[in-house]
């Protein structure tokens, strides 16, 4: 069991559902990102995924897409993002994950990039455009560095492939709640149970569920169904609409 998985299980023993939140590093600014992380941790989130912006985030919806592009336009670089990660992982004790697209790893050299993530104190990484089939370079590097590769299940993934993905997964598995990209609302319904049952059968790892989780009702609905509720675009939207100061109260209200 990886350190990350252990920590998740420990936290789960105290909470019936964990919260993972998401930020785009450098959006709206590096200073604001730091404030946001502080506020989220203070509000009790259990894990955080921090996205290093990429110019072509094909799996992200309009909200995160815009944040990626604005962060890049404001001068976000991989170097600065990893420095930022170092700062927050030193400051806070919850696990932080890196989220980005494969090209940033590839361009820097996969092994080198993984080492830098490790040096930055990150616990794992989510690379949404890297299916296990293409992860021949990434997996050993992550294993060597002791970082968990977080893989993704989707409702359209057949059982056999769920098991295949699970074989490469460490830490937990990220289940996307529905078709589509991030940022659109999801109507949680009983259908979800069947899907999550399939996921459970495929892996013993903790399950996170994201895409469209946006308020306390959604989180509440997921209680008992998954281990981690992932709130992504909802906080970004909140920051756009009501500013960084609103983050703490929002996160506290989620659970």
């Amino acid at each position, binding site marked *: 069991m990886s350190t990350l998985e252990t920590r998740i299980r420990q936290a789960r023993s105290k909470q019936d559902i964990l919260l993972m939140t998401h930020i785009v590093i450098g959006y709206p600014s590096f200073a604001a990102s730091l404030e946001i992380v502080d506020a989220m941790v203070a509000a009790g989130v259990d894990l955080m995924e921090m996205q290093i912006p990429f110019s072509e985030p094909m799996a992200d919806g309009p909200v995160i897409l815009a944040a990626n592009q604005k962060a890049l336009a404001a001068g976000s670089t991989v170097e600065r993002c990893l420095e930022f990660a170092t700062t927050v992982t030193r400051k806070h004790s919850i696990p932080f994950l890196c989220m980005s697209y494969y090209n940033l790893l590839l361009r820097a050299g996969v092994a080198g990039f993984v080492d830098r993530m490790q040096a930055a104190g990150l616990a794992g990484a989510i690379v*949404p*455009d890297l299916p296990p089939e*293409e992860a021949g370079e990434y997996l050993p590097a992550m294993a060597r560095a002791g970082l968990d590769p977080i893989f993704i299940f989707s409702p359209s993934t057949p059982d056999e492939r769920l098991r295949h993905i699970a074989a490469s997964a460490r830490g937990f598995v990220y289940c996307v709640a529905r*078709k589509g990209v991030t940022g659109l609302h999801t109507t949680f319904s009983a259908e979800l149970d069947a899907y999550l049952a399939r996921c459970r059968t495929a892996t013993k790892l903790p399950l996170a569920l994201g895409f469209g989780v946006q308020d306390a009702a959604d989180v509440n609905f997921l209680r008992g169904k998954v281990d981690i509720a992932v709130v992504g675009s909802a906080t970004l939207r909140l920051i756009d609409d009501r500013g960084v100061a609103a983050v703490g109260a929002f996160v506290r209200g989620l659970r």
Partner: protein
Amino acid sequence: MTSPLSPDQPRGYYGKFGGAYLPEILVATFRELETAFAAAQADPAFWREYETLMGEYSCRPTPLTFAENLTRDFGGARIFVKREDLNHTGAHKANNVMGQGLLVRRMGKKRVIAETGAGQHGVATATMAAKFGFECTIYMGEVDVERQRPNVFWMERLGARVVPVKDGSRTLKDAINEAFRDWAANMDSTHYVLGTACGPHPFPTMVTYFQSIIGQELRKQVVERTGRLPRRIYACVGGGSNALGVFSAFLDDTAVELVGVEAGGRGLPTHRHAARLASQDASIGVAQGYRTYFLQNSDGQMLETHSVAAGLDYIGVSPILAHLRDTGRVRFESATDAEVVAALALAVRREGLIPALESAHAFAQACKEAPGLPPDDVIVINQSGRGDKDIFTVADAFGDPAWEDFIRRKAASYERKP
């Protein structure tokens, strides 16, 4: 018919290029597509159906035209032009789109989406959708919507919803991302008609498969007409589909030099171009679901590209071509905007041909090389499309004052309306 260019590696790899770097949500859809495409390829009736459609709806086989005047002017190799511009909707894009249309019908889907840069692929897809009775949405960068408004107009008349994409550089690459986002949400009902030999496997193979009709015809025609194989074949390279289409039938004929011509934009030294394979500015990356050479910075962020030809103005390039460059089978060159406009003017004036700005890149390179080849040699330019669509751009490039006056008067006539 089996594909003339199947991956030489598992998982859709050509050498070290290709693959399928997909968000998990799309993986099943790509498997479904792969299966449907494999079944179609295995069904001999499918290619026949495709050829019949292209013969009866478009005008395949497209002619091979001898460019007698240019040949005489240059005093070198005999120049022939493969006339993809005569396809219905005005470009080779029709080949791919109609083929995918047949596949969509086999798969029983009812909606198609597509990205478009120059607008040609959008018009072609909207046309196919009208003919097959599919619902249709076209994603197009806002910049391209402006550059290619006539095409937008026709797409809308054809019943397509054209969505201007306002993200990123607001050009082709952003439209592609947006199309993938739509597909990820609607893959049960929808097929994404990718417009070039790029993207995740099986698109490069599949698009090349349909476009290979160009090369098949050309090989037959050129041997019939000249009794020999061409010495060189020139094709412009945006995503790479027309180039792969025309090259495909000659890959084993090592005496036939294959020349891909990329957008040199303002000139390679300015870095304002879209030359992925002909410049030193690109490096290997993964984006939009596949691995190839991209114009990107040292972090892996994609750069802004530039070309007078919207259809070549793209960060990536077919993984198949990337591989064919690495193996040395295809030579890559670039032509600047200025050279391209001059080549277009020459083709119009001397041969009565109006190549699209994209295709004019191939003309530009052929014009550079033809004089140095002996008159016994035959070279072929693939005229991928016609240039009518480019009138706004070309008129501006020529700085035609009568055109400007006309546009001013037109605009004034709209002001007078309530």
